[in-house]
């Protein structure tokens, strides 16, 4: 049975350096609120929000401060009560500046009036989609795809809903701990989606290294024949959307396509809980669980208000260990390294990982064509060939080699004996090829308009 739930490629990066066991036993605690939050107007893939507040405005917790502008967009809400200090560009985790609303916390924690949905059982897909957009729901697994778009009434019939509780990133345990305490709520929200989309089968995929979460989720959905909790192999990137869909249903999501095309809807457990909060409590997405782990004095799982600067979390964990050398926004495999303490936690941030020097990559050497990257690539690419094409500036070749399929999981770089930055090459290739494609499309449109 366990052989069935597999996907091609992949690695097991936890051995020896897995910090999961450290934080997976720690309950989620609510740290002291920060005195100032920085809330970016774009915390999702798509169009940024237009800020609804200005300097000096008073805001309450849960107040909408960012209005979604495009089709692919999601609202932004204030996570504290207080006064708007300014609306200005700030440096975010990716190192770029983007517009943010900066709010001084008055620690009164005054909430706006909350309006739970009156008749949750009667919600259809359109209603859930509209609510998600309004409540600022996005995919909390890291991709931050707006749920307003994801949960739109689909063009094809959906038959499978997959609840993603794999959490395959080393060190992180945010989803794990959330499942333990909010299983009922997660199942409840899943049932609303199941109803709205007329879905027959619900899979809950959880990696085997979380046996307690598997038990709790099994208990929570006991009696419902359409639900099945599937213990998955501890294998990275098990939580990748395409990998999970393939492992559970053996359907191959098309290159550049979404699981919806194959009748499967993949929802992260964290997002699912956020949906529950939105439907039953009327609470927008203003907080999320963040794991702080690695080379810190006191690792932990925290329920963090969106916009909390990273230094607040590091203080909560009593500071770095002496040999801390890198701070990562997210997990160590796909997260972004940051070097500023004022970067705010946004909706897509599932953890802050701190690594010691000895874990970091060493000096790059020549490719010896060992084929390990080919072996581990979950997208069945040949990363070393893409890397070579990239270094020669042959982006067309890289595109032909399927560089655009790369999901940036980092398995190739992790397993490269020559320490080559294969993932970096693929990522850069994707960016350049994407820009070229966009430019070509624009040119075509212009010519079409003439």
């Amino acid at each position, binding site marked *: 049975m366990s052989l069935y739930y597999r996907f091609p490629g992949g690695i097991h990066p936890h051995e020896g350096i897995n910090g999961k066991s450290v934080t997976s036993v720690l309950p989620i605690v609510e740290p002291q609120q920060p005195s100032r939050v920085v809330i970016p107007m774009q915390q999702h893939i798509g169009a940024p929000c237009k800020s609804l507040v200005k300097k000096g405005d008073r805001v309450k917790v849960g107040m909408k401060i960012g209005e979604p502008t495009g089709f692919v967009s999601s609202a932004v809400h204030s996570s504290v009560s207080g006064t708007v200090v300014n609306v200005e560009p700030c440096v975010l985790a990716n190192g770029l500046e983007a517009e943010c609303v900066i709010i001084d916390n008055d620690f009164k924690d005054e909430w706006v009036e909350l309006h739970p949905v009156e008749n949750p059982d009667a919600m259809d897909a359109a209603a859930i989609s509209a609510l998600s957009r309004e409540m600022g729901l996005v995919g909390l697994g890291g991709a931050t795809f707006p749920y307003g778009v994801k949960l739109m009434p689909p063009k094809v019939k959906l038959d499978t809903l997959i609840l993603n509780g794999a959490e395959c990133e080393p060190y992180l345990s945010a989803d794990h701990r959330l499942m333990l305490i909010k299983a009922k709520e997660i199942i409840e929200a899943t049932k609303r989606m199941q109803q709205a989309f007329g879905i027959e089968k619900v899979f809950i995929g959880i990696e085997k290294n979380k046996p307690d979460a598997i038990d709790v989720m099994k208990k929570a959905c006991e009696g419902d024949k359409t639900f099945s909790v599937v213990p998955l192999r501890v294998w990275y990137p098990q939580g990748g959307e395409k990998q999970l869909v393939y492992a559970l249903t053996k359907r191959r999501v098309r290159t550049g396509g979404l699981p919806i095309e194959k009748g499967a809807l993949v929802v992260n457990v964290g997002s699912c809980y956020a949906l529950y909060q939105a439907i039953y409590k009327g609470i927008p997405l203003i907080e999320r669980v963040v794991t702080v782990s690695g080379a810190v004095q006191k690792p932990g799982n925290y329920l963090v208000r969106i916009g909390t600067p990273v230094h607040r979390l590091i203080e909560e964990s009593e500071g770095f260990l002496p040999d801390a050398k890198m701070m990562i926004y997210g997990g160590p495999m796909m997260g972004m*390294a940051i070097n500023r303490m004022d970067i705010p936690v946004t909706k897509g941030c599932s953890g802050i990982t701190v690594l010691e020097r000895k874990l970091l990559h060493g000096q790059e050497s020549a490719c010896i064509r060992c084929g390990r990257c080919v072996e581990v690539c979950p997208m069945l690419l040949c990363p070393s060939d893409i890397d070579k094409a990239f270094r020669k500036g042959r982006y067309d070749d890289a595109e032909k080699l399927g560089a655009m399929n790369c999901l940036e999981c980092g*398995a190739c770089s*992790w397993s490269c004996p020559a320490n080559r930055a294969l993932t970096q090459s693929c990522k850069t290739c994707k960016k350049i090829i994407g820009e070229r494609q966009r430019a070509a499309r624009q040119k075509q449109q212009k010519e079409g308009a003439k």
Partner: protein
Amino acid sequence: MQKKLVVSCSPHLHNKAVSSQRIMLDVIIALLPTAVAAVWFFGGSALMLIIVSVLSAVAAEFLYQYHMRQPITVSDLSAVVTGLLLAFNLPANAPWWIAVVGSFLAIILVKQLFGGLGQNFINPALAARAILMLSWTSLMAANVLPHGGEWLAPATTDAVSVATPLAHGASGFTLWQLFSGDVPGMIGETCKLTLLLGGVYLLIRRVIDWRIPVAFIGTVAIAYFIKTGTLYSVESGSQNVLYQLLSGGLILGAVFMATDYVTSPMTGLGRLIMGIGCGLFLFIIREYSSYPEGCSFAILFMNVLTPLIDRFTGTKPFGFEKPKTPAKEAKA
């Protein structure tokens, strides 16, 4: 609070259990038992050849990189592996300078001139052996009878040159002799026992893929079974499967030479093709050419074909679907 944090591109973790150096070290460890066997059977001259060959390979790499003002990468141990493999492909009575010339040919001509580690298109040790064989045929073909156990005895000048097990007409060796290495031949190719041990070690350490050796040896076995129809019998002389498998450089080639990363395909299917191709060419050369043994030429031939194999066995991305209509693809 603020301290010097470094930033880089993800992933930030790295598998510390693998490195090019560690892989090369594993290969050296896997080769060591065979080196001991070589010295056991061929005495001090084998030891001398191994030492001279390794030292001159490392020296060649160092001198080239030093004079070309390149970073010195001797510490990755790849030159040591090349030197060892080259020594294994020399006969015990070869003069020391053959090892020096071979090492320099392997490292400078075949490896460095094409761009160094990872860039050579054929296996350096094998290419050097081929050049030596063609240039000093008499020195390279002379095969001393092993004097097992006479440890460190100097290779005497009056050592009897005898035919290798594969020379046309020769068949006076038992299976045990062939397996243990008590036969004339190149110093590192005779002891199948230690070679297979090394192969098992490399497989356990996941340094080599099973596909190339298994496909290689399997193809030779099948080809000989079709030709001779006998697995083993004393009467059939050399015309049976086991005798052929345990003779010549097949095992050394299949385990250590054909599996060379740089000159073999990267995909699983490609590696199978590589192994089968090596096996077929070995069979053809052994049976239908004037050379008694063709392992090195078979592998060299497949080395050259590797880019082609890689091209035709390139993987399709996960979820790749052929575009339904050309117009739709253009739009996307």
